[in-house]
C-alpha cells in the first residue's frame, strides 16, 4: 500500500496498482465506477471475477466469469474503454453485499506481488468483503439515526413555534384586557377579544391536526364509518368558515341528489376546514373561492377552487407532505405545513383520496373524494 503514485498515471490506474480497496457507498456511483474498473480489468492478462453480470448493467463489454483472461470484442463507450498496457498483470474482484442481499459495490485488487490470484485469495477477499459491508451498514445506520435525531429536533422546533404563536396572543391579549382593558378604545378592545378568540380556535385546530399526526405515527387513524351527506356538511362548514375569514368570499355549489358517503363526519369537517383555511390564507384576497360538491362514478368529490397564486407543478404532490410550506406564502399566511398533511392522512384513512391541481389561467384546486355509500365495489377511478 505504500507504492509511490506517479502523477502521470490515471488515478484509476494508480488505484489498481496500489491494490487499493474500493468501497463506494453511493450505490449508483459505485456501479458506474466499478463498471469502469471492470472495463479496465478486461485488458489484464490474468484475473478472477466473482461478481455477476448484472452488477454492471451499463457495461456492454463481453466478459466471462471463469477467472480466465478476458478480451474485449465489442466496442465500449470511450469512458469505459480498456486501458491497454497499464500494467495490470493479475486481478481479483468480489462484490459487496448489504445485509438484505443488495449489491452496493465491489472490492477489487490487482497485481498480486507473487504470481496470480488463487481461489484461496478469493475466499480471503470475500470474507473481507463481508466485514467491509457490515461496517458500511453500521456507518449507514449511525448516519440514519443522526438524521432521525435532527428531524425530531426540527419537528419539535416547528411544533413549539406553531403552538407558542397563538398562545402569545391569547396569553398577552387576556393580560392586556385584564390590566388595562378599561383604558382601551372600544374598537381596540373588541379587536383584541376577537384576536384572542380566533387564536384559541387556531390553537384548537392545530391540536386536532397534531392528533392526526400522532395517530399516524403509531398506526392508521381510527375513523368511524357512517353515512354522511356531504352537501349538508359542506354548507355548514363553509358558513362557519366564512366567519373566520371575513375578507374571503366563499361560494358553495352542490349537485342535486348526491348520495351519502362513508366516513367520519368530524374528520371530514376537519379536512374541509383545512382546505378552506388554506385557500383563504393563500388566495382569500384574490377573488371568490368556490366550493363544489359533485358526484363522480361511485364517489362524491369536494373541490375548493381559488384564484390565488396557484401551486408550482413540482409542488402539487409535495404540498401534502408534512411541514411543506409554499414559497408563494404571503406574509400573513400562518402555518407550518401540518394542515394539508392531516387532510391526506384523514381522507386516505376513510378510503378516499386528496389532490391539488393548477387552474387556468390562475389559481389552485384542492379536492378530496369519498366513496358513495353502497358503492364499495366500485373501482377507485
Amino acid at each position, binding site marked *: 500500500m505504500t507504492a509511490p503514485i506517479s502523477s502521470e498515471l490515471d488515478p484509476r490506474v494508480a488505484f489498481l496498482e496500489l491494490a487499493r480497496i474500493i468501497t463506494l457507498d453511493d450505490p449508483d456511483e459505485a456501479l458506474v465506477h466499478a463498471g469502469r474498473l471492470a472495463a479496465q480489468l478486461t485488458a489484464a492478462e490474468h484475473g478472477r471475477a466473482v461478481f455477476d453480470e448484472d452488477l454492471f448493467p451499463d457495461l456492454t463489454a463481453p466478459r466471462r466469469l471463469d477467472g480466465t483472461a478476458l478480451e474485449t470484442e465489442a466496442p465500449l463507450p470511450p469512458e469505459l474503454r480498456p486501458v491497454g498496457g497499464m500494467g495490470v498483470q493479475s486481478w481479483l474482484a468480489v462484490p459487496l453485499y448489504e445485509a438484505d442481499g443488495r449489491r452496493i459495490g465491489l472490492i477489487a485488487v490487482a497485481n498480486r506481488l507473487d504470481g496470480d490470484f488463487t481461489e484461496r485469495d478469493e475466499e480471503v477477499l470475500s470474507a473481507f468483503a463481508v466485514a467491509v459491508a457490515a461496517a458500511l451498514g453500521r456507518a449507514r445506520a449511525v448516519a440514519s439515526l443522526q438524521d432521525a435525531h435532527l428531524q425530531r*429536533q426540527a419537528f*419539535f*422546533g416547528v411544533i*413549539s*413555534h*406553531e*403552538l*407558542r*404563536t*397563538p*398562545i*402569545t*396572543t*391569547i*396569553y*398577552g*391579549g387576556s*393580560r*392586556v384586557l385584564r*390590566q*388595562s382593558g378599561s*383604558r*382601551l378604545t372600544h374598537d*381596540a378592545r373588541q*379587536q*383584541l377579544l376577537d*384576536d384572542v378568540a*380566533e*387564536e384559541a380556535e387556531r390553537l384548537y385546530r392545530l391540536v386536532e391536526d397534531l392528533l392526526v399526526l400522532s395517530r399516524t405515527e403509531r398506526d392508521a387513524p381510527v375513523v368511524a364509518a357512517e353515512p354522511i351527506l356531504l352537501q349538508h356538511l359542506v354548507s355548514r362548514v363553509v358558513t362557519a368558515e366564512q366567519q373566520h375569514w371575513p375578507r374571503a368570499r366563499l361560494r358553495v355549489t352542490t349537485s342535486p341528489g348526491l348520495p351519502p358517503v362513508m366516513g367520519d363526519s368530524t374528520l371530514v369537517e376537519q379536512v374541509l376546514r383545512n382546505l378552506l383555511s388554506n385557500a383563504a390564507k393563500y388566495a382569500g384576497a384574490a377573488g371568490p373561492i368556490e366550493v363544489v360538491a359533485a358526484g363522480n362514478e361511485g364517489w362524491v368529490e369536494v373541490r375548493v377552487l381559488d384564484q390565488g397564486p396557484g401551486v408550482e407543478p413540482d409542488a402539487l404532490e409535495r404540498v401534502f407532505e408534512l411541514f411543506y410550506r409554499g414559497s408563494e*406564502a*404571503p*406574509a*400573513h*399566511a*400562518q402555518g407550518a405545513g401540518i394542515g394539508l398533511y392531516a387532510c391526506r392522512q384523514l381522507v386516505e384513512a376513510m378510503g378516499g383520496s386528496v389532490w391539488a391541481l393548477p387552474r387556468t389561467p390562475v389559481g389552485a384546486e384542492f379536492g378530496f373524494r369519498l366513496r358513495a355509500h353502497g358503492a364499495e365495489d366500485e373501482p377507485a377511478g
Partner: protein
Amino acid sequence: MTADVLLVEDDERNGTLIQLALEPAGYVLSWARTVAEARRLLAEHLPKAILLDLRLPDEPGHVVAREVRAMPGGDRVLILAVSASVLEANRRQALESGCDDFIEKPISPRELLARVRAGMEERVEAPGRVEERA
C-alpha cells in the same frame, strides 16, 4: 415622525399585541412584516431598538441583526429577538448574529415593556459598553 422601535413580526396578532404593550408607554413603533420591509425601513431610519421575530416569510430574522450591527451606528441599537422559535440553536444563532437578548414567546405585555425599557436605559447609561463592542 421617526420611530423609536422597529418591530419585525409577521404574525398580525402577535404584532398588534406588541403595539398595545409599547405604544401606551410612549414608544413610537414602525412595523415590518418581512426582512425586505425591515431593510427598507432601516435604510430610511435607524431606530433606538428593534424587536425581531426570527421566523419570517422571506428570510430568517437574525440576518436583520447582523446587517444592523454592520451599519454605521448599528452598535448603539438595542436588538431583542422575540420569538416562538425557542430551540437552543435558534437562541444561539440570534445572539451570535448580534441580538442583545432573546425573549421567548409567549410573554406578558408588561414584561415585554419592562425588558424594552431596561434594555434601552442600559444602552443610554452604558455607552462604554457600546464602544467595547466595536
